[in-house]
C-alpha cells in the first residue's frame, strides 16, 4: 500500500507542532510581558501642560513646600491641585505679565478653570487615599519620584497593582518619619530595615492586601 501522505508532511507536522508549542504560550507571555513595560503602564508619561509649571524651580530653588499647592494631601483622599488664585498669590508680584501664565490670568478673568493634564492616573475602580499614606509615613517621593528635579512632571511609577501590592505586603522599607514626608532625595540608609520596623510599630502600619482596601 502506498504511503497515504507524502514524505514532506512529516516535516510540516513537526514544524507546525513546534511553532504551536512556541506560539501558544508565547503570545500570552509576550502580551503579559508587554503589559509590564513602561510603554504599556505609562511610566515615564509626561504630557505637556497648559501652563509650563516648573517644579524644579519652585521646589528646589524657591523651596516652596509641596503642601502649599497640594493642600489637601494630609486631609483628603486627593492631594488637590492649586486653584488659579493660588498662582496669582505670588504671580501678581513676580512674572505677572509672563506669556506662560496667560492661561492662569485668563482663568481668573473668565472664571473657568485651567485644564491640567493628569499625569498619575489610577483606574476608576481604585480608591487611593493620600491622607492615610501621608499619616503612615509614605513620602511624596516614594510614588511621585524626584519632583524637585522635574521641570515638567513625569510619571515615575508604573501604578500597576503589583507595584501597589509590593509595598502593601511589606511596607517597612518604604516608610519614613512623618516629618520627612515632603523631603526629596531622602537617603535610604543601612538602618532602613530597623527604622522601617520601628515606624511600622509607631504608626501602627498594617499589611493591607485584601481587596476592599482599594476596590470598593
Amino acid at each position: 500500500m502506498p504511503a497515504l501522505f507524502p514524505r514532506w508532511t512529516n516535516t510540516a507536522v513537526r514544524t507546525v507542532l513546534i511553532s504551536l508549542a512556541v506560539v501558544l504560550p508565547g503570545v500570552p507571555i509576550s502580551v503579559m510581558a508587554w503589559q509590564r513595560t513602561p510603554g504599556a503602564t505609562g511610566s515615564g508619561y509626561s504630557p505637556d501642560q497648559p501652563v509650563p509649571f516648573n517644579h524644579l524651580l519652585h521646589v528646589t530653588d524657591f523651596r516652596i513646600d509641596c503642601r502649599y499647592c497640594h493642600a489637601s494631601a494630609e486631609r483628603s483622599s486627593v492631594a488637590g491641585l492649586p486653584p488659579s488664585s493660588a498662582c496669582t498669590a505670588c504671580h501678581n508680584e513676580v512674572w505677572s505679565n509672563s506669556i506662560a501664565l496667560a492661561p492662569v490670568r485668563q482663568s481668573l478673568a473668565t472664571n473657568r478653570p485651567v485644564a491640567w493634564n493628569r499625569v498619575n492616573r489610577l483606574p476608576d475602580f481604585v480608591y487611593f487615599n493620600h491622607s492615610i499614606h501621608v499619616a503612615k509615613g509614605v513620602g511624596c517621593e516614594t510614588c511621585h519620584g524626584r519632583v524637585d528635579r522635574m521641570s515638567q512632571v513625569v510619571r515615575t511609577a508604573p501604578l500597576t497593582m503589583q507595584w501597589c501590592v509590593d509595598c502593601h505586603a511589606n511596607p517597612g522599607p518604604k516608610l519614613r518619619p512623618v516629618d520627612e514626608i515632603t523631603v526629596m532625595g531622602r537617603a535610604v540608609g543601612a538602618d532602613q530595615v530597623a527604622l522601617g520596623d520601628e515606624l511600622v510599630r509607631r504608626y501602627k502600619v498594617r499589611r493591607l492586601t485584601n481587596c476592599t482596601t482599594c476596590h470598593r
Partner: protein
Amino acid sequence: MTSFDDELSRRNFVKLLGASMALAGLDGCSRMPGEKILPYVHQPRELTPGIATHYATAMMLDGFATGLVVESHEGRPTKIEGNPDHPASLGAAGIFEQASLLQLYDSNRASAVRSAHAPTGWEAFSEAFSPRALRNHVGGHGAGLALLLEATSSSVIADMIATLKGLYPEAGIHYYSPLARTEASIPQYDIRAANVILAIESDFLAAGPMQLRMSREFSDRRREPSADMNRLYAIESAVTVTGSSADHRFRCRPSMIQPVLAELYSLLGDASVPAQRAAERSYGGITSSALRVIAADLSRHKGQCLVIAGERQPPSVHALVAAINEQLGNTGRTVWRIRSPLLGAGDGSFSIEALAGRLRDGAVDTLICIGGNPSYNTPGPLQFDGAFRKVRNTAYVGLYENETGQNAKWLVPAAHYLETWGDGRAYDGTLSVVQPLVQPLNGGKSAVEILAAVCGVEKSPLALLRESLGRTGLVGETAWTDAVRRGFVVGAAAPRIQGPTIVVPTAAAPEKTDHIDVTFAADSRTHDGSFANNGWLQELPDPVTKLTWDNAAHLSPATAARLLVGSGDTVLVRTPASSIRLPVLIVAGHADDSVTVHFGYGRRGAERLAAGVGTDVFPMWPATGAFVSSASVDRAVDAGQHTFAITQSHWKMDGREQAKSETLRSYNARQATFKPDDHPPPSLFKGEPPPAAVKQWAMTIDLGLCTGCSACVVACQSENNIPVVGKEDVEKSREMQWLRIDRYQDGTEENPEFIAQPMLCQQCERAPCEYVCPVGATDHSPDGLNEMVYNRCVGTRFCSNNCPYKVRRFNWFDYNAEISETEKMAKNPDVTVRERGVMEKCTFCVQRIREKEISAEVAGTPFLGSSVVTACQQACPTRAITFGSLTEPESEVMRQREGPRAYNVLDELGTRPRVRYLSRIRNANPALDTEQ
C-alpha cells in the same frame, strides 16, 4: 433600559459572534485615555476636594416639610439623608425624599421658558406677566387673574400672595395637591405615650407627612419585648404597611368603617348612638366580638391609648374617631390639634373646585399654575383639563412639561428644592428652611421668583425669604445662620388649639351592599404621579404587593373568585364618574367586595420614563374628592393577560421559618430558659477563625421593628450606584437592588399574618460564593466582609448559583451606559460604577467603613465600630438595623446577637452569616389570640 428588541437572525448572530471574538482580545490593549484635572479658580473655603460636605435643607410634600441633610461632593448633591434634629425626620428619610435626588438630575426636566412652543426666555415671561402688561388683560383689580399653587405652608409664599392681593385684590388664589389635607386644624399624635393604638384605614407608619417620626415613636415602644410594649390594632380594607405590622389586623369594607366606629363608640359607653349591641355583626372582616375585645383593651388604657383615622377618611369618620378619643380621655394626652399651617386650609374658596367653577364661567383671563399637575391629577368629572385649555392665557411652572405643561401657553421650568431658597412648616408646625445646594441646572425658577415677577418685585428669593422669616420672629444674623445650619427653628412647633366641636354622626344604616366599594389610594411609589418619572421609585417593589412599574385593581381572593378573574385579567371598573379598564392583582388580606386603585400612573406628559406605565384612575375619581366611592366591577372578556413585573412570586415559608415570629407570651416562656448556643452548626466549608486584632463587622435586623417601608432599599440604591433596569428586565428577575425586602404570609389567604424581612448579603463567615469563583473575584477580608471585586469578575455567575440567600445581582446589560450626563452626577464617587457582565452585591457599605477607618487613623483617634453607619441603617425610620463590630463586647450589635431573639437564616447550611435577625414579637391580645 432597552434590551435587544430585534430578533437576531442566525446569520447576524454568527457575524456578531465572529466580530466580538476577534475584537475581544484587543480590549485590553488600549491605553487609558488622557484625563483633565480642573481645579477651582477660587477654592471655596468650606470645601476640600475629596471630602464630602453636608447641608441641612427640607423637602416639601403635600405642603409639609421633612428636614433633610444632603451630602455634596464638590458641589454636586449625591445623597439625601434625614436631619437627625428635625422633628419630622429624626434622622430617617423616606423613599420620596431620598429619590428626589434623581428628580434633580432628571434629563426629562423642562429646560427652557417657552411660549406657544417657541423658546422665549425668562425676560419675555417676566415682561408678559409684569403688572404693567397683565393689568390690560385681567382688569385693574385682577378679577381675570387666577393663581393655582401646590399645597404649601411657606411663609414667603404667603407674603408674596399678600403682596399680589394688594396689587390685584380680586385675583383668585387656589391651592391644590390631590393628597394634601384640607382641614383647618390637623391632629397631632404622641405615639410614644400610647399603650394601645387602633389604626382605622390609616397607614401612619408609611405614608403622610409625619410617618418617619411616628414610625420611630411606634418602634421605641417595641424595642424590647416586655410588658411595656405597645399594641397595634389595624382595621383596613387594603393591606398597608401599618396593617401588616399590626399585632392584630382586621379586614373591613371601606363603606363599613363608619358603622364599625359607631359600634365601637357605643361599646365605649355612649348609648345615644344606636348600634346593634346585642346582635353579632360582621362588617366584611371584623366582627362585633372582636370589636368588643378592642373596646375593652382601649378602655383599660384610658388616656394612654389612641385611635387614628386615615387622613383621607371622610369627615364623619374623623368626627367619630375624635369622639372616641374624647371618650377615652386621650384628647390632650395622646392626641391634640393644631391650626393647619397650609395656606387656605379649611376655606373652600381656595379650592380647585372653586377655580374650576370660575374657569367654567369664563371669568378667568390669565391662569398661572405653579407646580402640581392639575390637568392630570384632578377628578375626571371636574373636567379641569378642558376648562384649562379654554383659558386665553395660561402659564405653567413645573419641573416637567407634563400634562398641564403641554396644554399651557407659557411653560417655565421650575427650580428643584435643592436649587432654591424657601421655607415651609413641618406637620407639627416647625418652621423649616429650604437651602439650595446647586444653582438651577436648567435655569429653573422657584414659586417665589414667579410671584415676585408677577408682582413686579425686584428682590432675590433669599432677600424675600429673610424678610418673611423676620416677620415670623427670626430676627438677626445669628438666628438666621442658626436656622439655616440646623435646617429649622428650634422649638417652633405650633401651639395646641381646641379642636372643632365634635358632632357625632348618627350611624347611617349600612348602605346597600350589592355594589363594590372602590378606594382611591396614594401610590406607595409615585404618590400622586409627581414621582412617576423616577426610576428608583418605579422600580422599587411596592412594600405590600412587590409590584414594580405598574398599578392594578387590588382585589381580595374571594372577590376575584366571585368575579371569575385572576391576577393579570382585566376588569372594567365603573364609577358614576367614569369607567376604566384595569388589570387585576389579587392581594391576600384585602377586604372582600372592595377594590383599591392607585393614583399616579398612566401619565401622558413629556416624561419619558413615566409614559405608558400603568393606568390613570383620576378620571373615575368623584368630583367631591372623596377617596371612597361605589363602583361596579366586571370582567373584561376581550382583554388579554396583563404581565406584572413583581419581584416576589412565592409568599409562603413552607415550614422553613426564614422570618421568625412569635407572640410575646411564647417569647416570655422561651426566654426564661434561654441559653446562648455556643455551637454553630457544622459547615461543609473550611474556614479559619477571624483575626481578633481588626474589627469584625456584623449586622442585626429586628423583624419586630421592620415595617417593610422600603426606605432602606432606596438608600442602598442611592449610596451604591445601583442601576435601574426597567420593567422588562424586572419581569426576568434581573432587578439590581442589593437589598430587597422579602415578604411572607402566614395563615389563611383571607386574613394572613404578614412579616417583612430585609434580605441582603449575609456576609457569611463560610461563604458558599467564595469557593466557586474561578477568578477569585469574591473573597473574604480580615474584618469579616465578603468582598466583591468588580474589576476581577468575569461573570461566570457561579457565585450567584451557589448563594443560598439569592442576594447577588448580575449586570445583564450595561445599564449605566444608558443614563444621561446629568444623571451621572447623582452617582456616589466613592463607589465603583459597574459595567455589563459583572456580579455585584451588598458590601456592608464598605466605602463608609473605610472612610471612617481612614479618618480615625489619620486623626489618631480610636476607631469605634459604632461610628460606621450603613446607608440602610441610616435611612431606617424605626432603627431596625444595627451595625457594629463583634470585637466590641459592649456594642449594641453584640448585645442583640447574643440575645434570645437572634437567629441566622438558613442556619443549618453552616454558612455562619454575619447578619442576624431578631424574631418578630407580636404583642397579641390573649383574648383574640388563637395561638396557644
